[in-house]
């Protein structure tokens, strides 16, 4: 008989979730003997909490968030990786106002609230002799693109290189990105799956990971076909120009071996956050990064 897993995404379905959707659409989950019930939250901070509270089985989260959560004592583990490279950027409009990070002095940076903002931005600014206090941080909710496009802020932090850049382009704005990994921020996994450390179902997770790996492989081989299948999942909302562009910038980032994990990477990032005082205790990767 089939086991049902509830999976809560980090946000509404978008190209970042390609393997999940494809696995479901192409019946890879079913083939592994599991049934996955996909839920979409409106607040990305909720899914890990729900996993920790045993309300859902799996959730999509971010590596920095997981480290913060585990440091705060939430019973979470990483069960798989969805996208293994950073997608986050510090983005400005390409209008010659800001050509270099040092031009940000005294400027406004819009953020969508996240736990590692200060650590990352401070690190990036340090490389050009500035620091966090030289810029003004403004929470702009989720109106990242429009706040940048309308000129209310000079830069945004939290825009993804595969998404916000395309969004701005579609609205007629050319954006320029500064990648955190180029400015001293350790590399990290952008999107990961998390499960409850105490109650996770090992067999189900293994089955789940297999299906995801199969889907990633399929996408890597047939990106165009996969796009059509992805868009067919919810044609009303998915089948549009922006998602198509985003897809093309995303599919190569999907982790080929979701189950595998680079423990060192987690420890490095935790170390980075700890020294930047974003967390007060330093969790060990071996305790919460599991490979299935």
């Amino acid at each position, binding site marked *: 008989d089939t086991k049902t897993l509830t999976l809560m995404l980090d*946000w*509404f379905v*978008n190209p970042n979730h390609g393997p999940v959707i494809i696995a479901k659409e192409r019946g890879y989950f079913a083939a592994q003997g599991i049934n996955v019930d996909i*839920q*979409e*939250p*409106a*607040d990305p901070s*909720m899914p890990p*909490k*729900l996993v920790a*509270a045993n*309300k859902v089985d799996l959730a999509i989260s971010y590596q920095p968030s997981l480290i913060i959560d585990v440091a705060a004592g939430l019973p979470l583990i990483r069960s798989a990786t969805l996208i293994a490279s950073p997608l986050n950027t510090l983005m400005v409009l390409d209008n010659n106002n800001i050509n270099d990070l040092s031009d940000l002095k005294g400027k406004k940076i819009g953020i969508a609230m996240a736990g590692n903002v200060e650590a990352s931005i401070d690190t990036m600014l340090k490389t050009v002799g500035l620091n966090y206090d030289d810029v003004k941080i403004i929470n702009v909710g*989720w109106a990242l*693109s*429009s706040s940048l*496009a*309308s000129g209310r802020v000079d830069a945004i932090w939290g825009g993804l290189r595969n998404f916000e850049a395309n*969004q701005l382009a*579609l*609205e007629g704005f050319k954006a320029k990105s500064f990648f955190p990994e180029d400015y001293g921020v350790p590399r990290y996994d952008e999107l990961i799956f998390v499960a409850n450390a105490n109650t996770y179902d090992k067999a189900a997770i293994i089955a789940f990971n297999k299906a995801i790996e199969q889907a990633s492989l399929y996408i890597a081989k047939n990106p165009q076909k996969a796009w059509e299948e992805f868009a067919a999942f919810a044609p*009303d*909302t998915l089948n*549009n120009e*922006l*998602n198509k562009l985003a897809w093309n910038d995303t599919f190569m980032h999907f982790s080929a071996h979701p189950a595998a994990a680079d423990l060192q990477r987690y420890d490095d990032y935790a170390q980075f956050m700890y020294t930047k005082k974003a967390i007060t205790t330093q969790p060990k990767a071996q305790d919460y990064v599991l490979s299935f």
Partner: protein
Amino acid sequence: MSELTRVEPITVDPLLREVKSKQPLYKSLLRMLVSAAVIIGLWQAVVVIFEMPSFILPSPFAVFERLIERHQVLFKHGWVTAQEIILGLLLGLSMGLLFALQMLLFKPVKRWLLPLLIASQAIPVFAIAPLLMLWLGYGIASKIVMAALIIFFPITTCCFDGLRSTPSGYLELAKTMGATKWQMLRHIQFPAALPTLASGIRVAVVIAPIGAVAGEWVGSSEGLGYLMLQANARMLIDEMFAALFILSVLSITLYFVADKCLKKLIPWEA
């Protein structure tokens, strides 16, 4: 007894109403249409004059197109939200009435409860929304509770203020007639409070949708709030506005229905 006495006023009511309902229905409908036209005109003007980029404020025509194109989806989600609002209203109303009654009947309760009540209101429902989601799940229950919570305070306040400001002469009269607390409430204070309570209900009807939509924002898989967020996340701003439009229509309808009912209930007020 009440069956017998309650029947009587009907004979005078038609007379009373004769003068009031001069306004035919089609006139108020016409007025609504013209209002709508004016709003749309203003909206278009803002779009044109301020050169609004469409990802901030789409033109009404784009929204209208979207509305037609997606009417099925919109109605489906609208129906969910409508249910949440109406059930939330009922729940909030009864809780508010109950609370007000309690504060009225047991003076000490009031003193102790009021700060609690205000504190509970001061905490934005959003802040406790995650708790609600955890307890009540992602289904309709949590949204109903959200809507009820948001209207709870206006109802309680208006009801309580209305109930306690009954002309003292009425109360004294009933007292000499041997009215119990409950009878006093039922036959004197409640009818006397109806006009103030009506204000509260009008407010409630209009803000209840905020609660329902807010609830959907925190967690849901259907409803107009969900649709709006999703549309917003996908930069389908015209769809978001189409959902907003449906929501407004819902609210206005609710308001006018409530208003009509309230006016029927309180014929002795102008």
